[in-house]
């Protein structure tokens, strides 16, 4: 332990605490706002300490029919949509990436490298650079306003495939050899060996992908025109815009809080997995 000067430790803790305060401040403001009455929320200055309306606001937001004049769906419905989308994206992506990585690493077939490069290309095509044409395709397939349309276009990108490929590459050949001697065919090998061995990676990736899926904004914005398919993250903007006319800030803040909560909870409780997932998927 070098420099065991208590003063240095003290400074370190102060700096970190100040850092945390700066980072946490916006969320705190939001939280406080969600705990006051609507009336209080239009008086300047806005409060810095929580009020007592948390559960009342929660009830109104969750079960209400959305903000007046915002043209959004009930909040609980939007939360459900978000959940469906996030889960479909996370689970879908993991499944097809596992399968593709398995094929690319363990099989020899014509066009193998072509497939690999094609998947690689998806890394370079985030949805924001192809919004119009992708929208057209989805529309033509009749997938607008559907869970399928919300998730499928987002599940084929390469990071998960590459990560699994790396994991598979580190699995020793001897394992496959002895499994084969024991009579395991490819799918059995996949099910009984590869998947269990990739468990932690799958979990870590799930955390990252769930957050990615839940936080989608541009894409749901474009392809949902039917209010009942709105996701909660995309509705925030409409709510804020509507605040010009009907400033129900306490509802808006509560909604934002609800929109933020699931990913934050996931990160906090599965911190180790989350960090692992972040670092592994960037390699």
């Amino acid at each position, binding site marked *: 332990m*070098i420099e065991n000067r208590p003063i240095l430790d003290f400074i370190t803790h102060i*700096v970190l605490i100040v850092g945390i305060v700066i980072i946490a401040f*916006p969320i705190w403001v939001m939280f406080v706002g969600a705990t006051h009455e609507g009336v209080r929320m239009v008086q300047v200055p806005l409060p810095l300490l929580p009020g007592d309306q948390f559960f009342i606001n929660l009830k109104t937001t969750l079960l209400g029919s959305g903000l007046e004049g915002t043209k959004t769906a009930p909040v609980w419905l939007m939360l459900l949509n978000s959940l469906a989308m996030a889960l479909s994206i996370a689970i879908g992506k993991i*499944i097809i990436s596992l399968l593709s990585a398995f094929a690319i690493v363990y099989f020899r077939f014509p066009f193998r490298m072509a497939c690999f490069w094609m998947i690689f290309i998806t890394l370079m095509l985030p949805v*924001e650079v192809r919004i119009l044409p992708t929208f057209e*395709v989805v529309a033509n397939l009749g997938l607008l306003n559907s869970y399928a349309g919300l998730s499928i276009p987002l599940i084929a990108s390469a990071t998960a495939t590459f990560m699994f490929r790396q994991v598979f590459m580190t699995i020793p050949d001897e394992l496959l050899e002895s499994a084969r001697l024991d009579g395991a065919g490819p799918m059995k090998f996949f099910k009984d060996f590869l998947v269990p061995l990739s468990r932690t990676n799958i979990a870590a990736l799930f955390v990252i992908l769930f957050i990615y899926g839940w936080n989608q904004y541009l894409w749901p914005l474009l392809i949902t025109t039917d209010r009942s398919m709105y996701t909660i993250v995309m509705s925030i903007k409409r709510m804020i815009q509507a605040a010009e006319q009907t400033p129900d800030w306490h509802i808006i803040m509560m909604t934002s809080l609800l929109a933020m909560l699931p990913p934050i909870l996931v990160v906090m409780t599965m911190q180790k997995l989350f960090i692992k997932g972040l670092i592994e998927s960037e390699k």
Partner: protein
Amino acid sequence: MLKSIHFNSQALAYLLVAPQVIITLVFFIWPAGQALYQSFLIEDAFGLGSEFVWFENFIYLFEDDYYGESFGRTALFSFLVAVISMSFALFLAGFAERVVRGGLFYKTLLIWPYAVAPVLAGALWVIMFDPSLGIITYFLKYFGIDWNYKLNGNQAMTLVVMAAAWKQVAYNFLFFLAGIHAIPKSMIEAAAIDGSGPVRRFWTIIFPLISPVTFFLLVINTVYAFFDTFGIIHVMTQGGPAKATEILVYKVYNDGFIGLDLGGSAAQSVILMFIVISLTVIQFRYIEKKVEYK
């Protein structure tokens, strides 16, 4: 790349890659191709016909002042977000590395902004800085600063930069911390015995040794600023006031979906595609060499 021991069943292999390949073709390759194609077209005002005009759309963009400004604006935005976000994160990581007990506590509380969607980050900041109700606006007024980002373009830019940087700090923090932890303790101790205090140690030993991480984050932050910040702009300023915060990715949306200029928007998409591709190539080429600590 192929395992030396492998299966030969081709039919099964195709079946396995099929889902990803099909989705990639349908939702990535085909639209990208479409964008490319459309960028060579101009649709007439009624959307009834289109004319193949080769590079006219691109030439128009290069000559268009608005596009040039947007490009410069995006570069500035990206630079500011990367620098601010990375500096703050590095600063915190440098201190966090010293903490033995309670390290988990700090880590947990610093990383969760990653989970916040960019659009929500934007919402948070826009509420804090609202010209009439914002809590920070209130404090600024107290100090005599008149804050109205809806009218002042520079203030608007400052606001979106702060919101975007705020969100990325968590990500950068994690990677910087991992990079610093990877440096062998004995090297730090050797530097301490050699007479370096903590500050000098940081700049002469730690910082040079985490340069791969720094470079990596620079690319990631740039990509983030270019593309993932759509939500922030959309919720905070919608590109305003007077296009002061219209970055490229927002312009694609604005011109395409709102302005319905399909050819121009497609051309912009294509240019953005080139930018991503170059950044990704840089990332793979130059970052793939890792420093060994011996």
